């Protein structure tokens, strides 16, 4: 009888512990998404500031503002957002080398966005691998929240800009 109680206690403890881990992983996936979202918005805002640079040609200004505005569009679907952010990366890849003084403000924001994306996708991978466990699935330890998704986009240099200074 006491053996049964011990087994039940151990099982209960293990399940609670696993539930804590699932919870923590989900929370981290959410927080890293919020951080990535903020970093991407800031990147687009900084890109828009390029347009205000003295002496910028109108074609460059239009190209950058189009791409940045598309990325800042509210209520984009996940897929459209990924596309818009990738497009902005490509535009910045093409435009930034032609401007010299301006890049100092933009490069750290691009690096930040890129690091944030890595942290987010890493957090999502952890959360998903916990969700795939039998115990988690059968006992529905992940609750009713939708499974988190990685954010897939082309991002520019992560930390490469540091080397080229």
């Amino acid at each position, binding site marked *: 009888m006491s053996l049964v109680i011990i087994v039940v206690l151990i099982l209960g403890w293990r399940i609670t512990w696993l539930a804590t881990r699932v919870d923590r992983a989900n929370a981290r996936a959410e927080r890293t998404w919020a951080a990535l979202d*903020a970093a991407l918005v800031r990147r687009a805002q900084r890109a828009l500031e390029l347009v205000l640079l003295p002496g910028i040609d109108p074609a460059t200004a239009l190209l950058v503002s189009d791409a940045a505005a598309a990325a800042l569009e509210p209520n984009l679907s996940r897929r459209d957002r990924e596309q818009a952010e990738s497009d902005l990366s490509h535009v910045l890849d093409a435009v930034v080398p032609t401007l010299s003084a301006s890049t100092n403000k933009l490069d750290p924001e691009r690096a930040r966005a890129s690091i*944030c994306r890595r942290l987010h996708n*890493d957090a999502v991978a952890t959360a998903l691998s916990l969700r795939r466990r039998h115990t988690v699935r059968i006992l529905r330890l992940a609750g009713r929240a939708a499974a988190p998704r990685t954010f897939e986009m082309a991002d520019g240099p992560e930390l490469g800009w540091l080397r080229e200074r």
Partner: protein
Amino acid sequence: MTEQRRSLRVGIVCPYSFDVPGGVQNHVLGLARYLHQAGHQPSVLAPGELDPAGATLNVEDFSSAGAAMPVRYNGSVARVNFGPLSAARVGRWLRKGQFDLLHIHEPITPSISLLALWAAEQPVVTTFHTATPRSRSMQLAGGVLSAAIEKIDAGIAVSESARNVVVQHLGRDAVVIPNGIQFDAFAGHAAAATPERSSHPKLIFLGRLDEPRKGLDVLLAAGPLIMESHPHLEVIVAGQGHRPVPPWCRSLGMISEEQKIALLGASDVFVAPHLERESFGIVLLEAMSSGVPIVASELPSFLDLLGPAQAEGRLGELFVAGDHRDLARAVRQVLEQPNPLRTARAQQAARGYDWSSVGTAVLAVYRAALSAAPRNFAAKGAG
């Protein structure tokens, strides 16, 4: 957006004892110094004692985790801490420090690093230094270890090869940020020494003498072959450990940082004959900064620093790891056909690893980790 100016209390955990020199220890000291100069408040926890004479760290910024136990580990002798006493010390340090962020080095080792990761409540950044797979022990250690790994908020790997191990064996990702060096200290000394290069060329090896994986045996086997065509070659080895060397080789034992800088500046060829598992190769970078021509074995981490094996653009002469004949060929090549342009390019490349760049990258990861931290910690990194 003035977040860059906010001062962070950063708790840095180094698993290896400060009683002995080592790559990770040096990296931690360099990082602490950089953070201090950048206006932050680093506090280092490590086994052993800080040597106040040679240290670049304030004594009050250092806490000892006690004496460490020597254990043969990962092909080297590592001095590690474990057990309840160490865990209690780690807990006290964490409570006293009130850190905004923890930066734990080599977290998956049986050491205060793992204990700190286990106990951490604040955001955790970790740096993975070695490229050693440990999947078997990972499986055996099971859930406890997985749960600890899940607590990491941001991973840093010192090279692509170290990152691959993190991805494949821990199932996590990491930003690649190389180890930092004090570029100016090494480069500054080089110019003065250049005219000396003469008919008595100096070959230098730095690293533990008694660890087979550092490859000194390969160099000593190659020595006679090189001396057939360069009878006046001076072979100098410096590093910890006892090991008999042939009469034509001068062994200096352990040398100070200043001696190392002077020695590199006065050498004609630097040889890195490592056999395996060198995760980064900081001495290689220091030699590159000094403007010494490089001969190195074809290890993945060395290729990361020197460029691809086949390309014309590589920054040093490579040889097949463990092959003393090929090593002799590479050294003769460097001595007989000096390539000052390549050496200059190598020096230029090494500049990118100066703490001024590497430290900025580490701070960028801190800010990203803090921006995704729970609210009570995120305040510090937000902006």
